């Protein structure tokens, strides 16, 4: 509750929250209702400009090169993008949290090994790695999500490991050890809750990165495939038509931009609030 209050007082974070709430609202609405069928191809309705009536039907944001309503596709795409963010976040947390804690808390050979692997994975450009993984698994939205999740695991391991290293040297952990607390209980009660702040901050930033990367993969044809209404795939599709139909690329791009901006604003705000060392 305190966090929410602090967030609402933080300027950029509150803007970020507003954008995210709008995005979620669009996604939920899109799940239950869209103005037109997002997948229905209609060759009579090709490339209708936005805000225009066409045979008693209104296409608010126009139609694309296959005569599909862009607004409906964007609304369906919102849910997909949120799903991509959550999947990537879940994957990197699922693997990153335990590995980071093990490396940080137990140290020794296992720490060295994990760090080596992390270093190697981080030594390649993440988009290159994601492209290679997507190419190996085959182009599809699910595989793009997996690729992005995998690429983000090493970042999480590194962040959590460094936090655990700081935390385990603190006196209360020593005290718990001296009192005979079991290791897993120390981890669960003392270490994990204190890793939450960096996890939340970086999780938010990872979310925006994942949306951007998934759109990029779809844009080069290695992510969501036609006719999936994913925003990046819509841009990929619109590349053929945008010479004389600006709206086919403008609106999907704006959606990607604002979603990423929202999560970035929130992430920046969270960092200011939760990490007082950086605040000056």
């Amino acid at each position, binding site marked *: 509750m305190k966090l929410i209050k602090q967030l609402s007082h933080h300027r950029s974070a509150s803007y970020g929250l507003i954008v995210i709430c709008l995005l979620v609202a669009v996604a939920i609405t899109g799940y239950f209702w869209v103005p037109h069928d997002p997948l229905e191809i209609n060759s009579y309705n090709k490339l209708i400009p936005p805000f225009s009536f066409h045979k008693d039907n209104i296409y608010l944001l126009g139609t694309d090169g296959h005569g599909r309503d862009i607004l409906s596709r964007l609304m369906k795409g919102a849910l997909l993008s949120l799903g991509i963010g959550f999947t990537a976040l879940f994957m990197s947390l699922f693997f990153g949290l335990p590995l980071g804690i093990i490396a940080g808390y137990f140290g020794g050979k296992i720490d060295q090994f994990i760090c080596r692997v992390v270093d190697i994975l981080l030594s390649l450009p993440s988009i290159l790695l994601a492209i*290679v993984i997507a190419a190996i698994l085959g182009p599809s939205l699910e595989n793009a999500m997996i690729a992005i999740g995998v690429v983000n695991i090493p970042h999480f391991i590194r962040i959590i490991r460094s936090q655990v290293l700081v935390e385990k040297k603190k006196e209360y952990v020593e005290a718990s050890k001296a009192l005979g607390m079991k290791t897993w209980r120390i981890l669960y009660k003392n270490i994990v809750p204190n890793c939450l702040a960096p996890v939340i901050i970086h999780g938010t930033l990872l979310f925006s990165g994942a949306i951007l990367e998934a759109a990029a993969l779809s844009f080069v044809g290695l992510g969501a495939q036609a006719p999936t209404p994913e925003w990046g795939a819509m841009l990929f599709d619109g590349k053929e038509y945008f010479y004389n139909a600006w709206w086919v690329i403008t609106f999907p791009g704006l959606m990607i931009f604002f979603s990423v901006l929202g999560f970035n604003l929130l992430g920046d705000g969270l960092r200011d609030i939760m990490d007082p060392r950086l605040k*000056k």
Partner: protein
Amino acid sequence: MSFLKLFFKKTSSLLFTLFFLSLLVFLLIHLLPGDPAKIMLGERATEESLKAVRIQLGLDKPLYQQYFSFLKDLAINQNLGTSIKSGELISTEIKRKFPATLELTFIALFISSFFGVILGIIAAIKRGTRWDFSTMFLALAGVSMPVFWLALLLIWFFSIKLQWLPITGRIDPLIDFDSKNYFYLLETLMSGNFEALKSSLKHIVLPACALATIPMSMTARFTRATMLETLGQDYIRTAKAKGLNPLLVIFKHALRNALIPIITVVGLQFGSLLGGAIITESIFSWPGVGTWLLDSIYARDFPAMQGAILMIGASFIIINYLVDLSYLVIDPKLRKSTS
């Protein structure tokens, strides 16, 4: 830790990562779905010809032997095989495509660091004013910008609406210019062929600007933070109190000291630009390694894929290594903190 020790540590980890990269690139043939021999010969190939190709590629040998011969070919003969799609040697293709990527990345790095540093300084000097807010908002927007979308918008505006700049390629094909090393900008400049130079500059502007957006925003944010920190130091207050020219204080006293961390960040961005170039290149059909990588993935041309991944990965790793080393030389304080 002494400099020498750190140098050895960094170099050994460089070699280890390069080794891993070669392993990844090698394993790619086996990880990719489909039979490489079938991809080369097409679906209607006979069993015998498939076998012959497998033997020719060495796919019938045990994995570790294949890897050793791959490494031997790579290290001694610089031979990565021939592209299935174009039939050319991979090494020849690299010689043609890598300069294109390098030129694009350099120009983008120049744009991003020049404008990024200037914007950051403005924001820091005018802290808390409208200038600060608008530059920082611009920087945040730049970080959140899908580059591929920005590239399309730039094409739409500058190439289609205004018709100022060309959409694809590196130079106007009507201009008579024969490039030897495929460094168009450098070669046209050296040979004094200004018409060709102008044309190749026109071709590089849009892709370079699109590619530079994200690093420029990061540089601006980082420069602002570093400048603010430096401007808060005692010696700046002293310099101001002495009655020195405020501009002199900013550029000579503050910027000089803020520059070391900024240069580090800019150096590291050079690597990330290589990654970003993959997608930017493909939008502008820039004939570099990135376009080549994506084209070879679509065509399942795995020797070309290997060459492209190896080139992008290895240059990324080596550049970051060089940046690491150079700031160990520049800033002795770092030698302590990294140990």
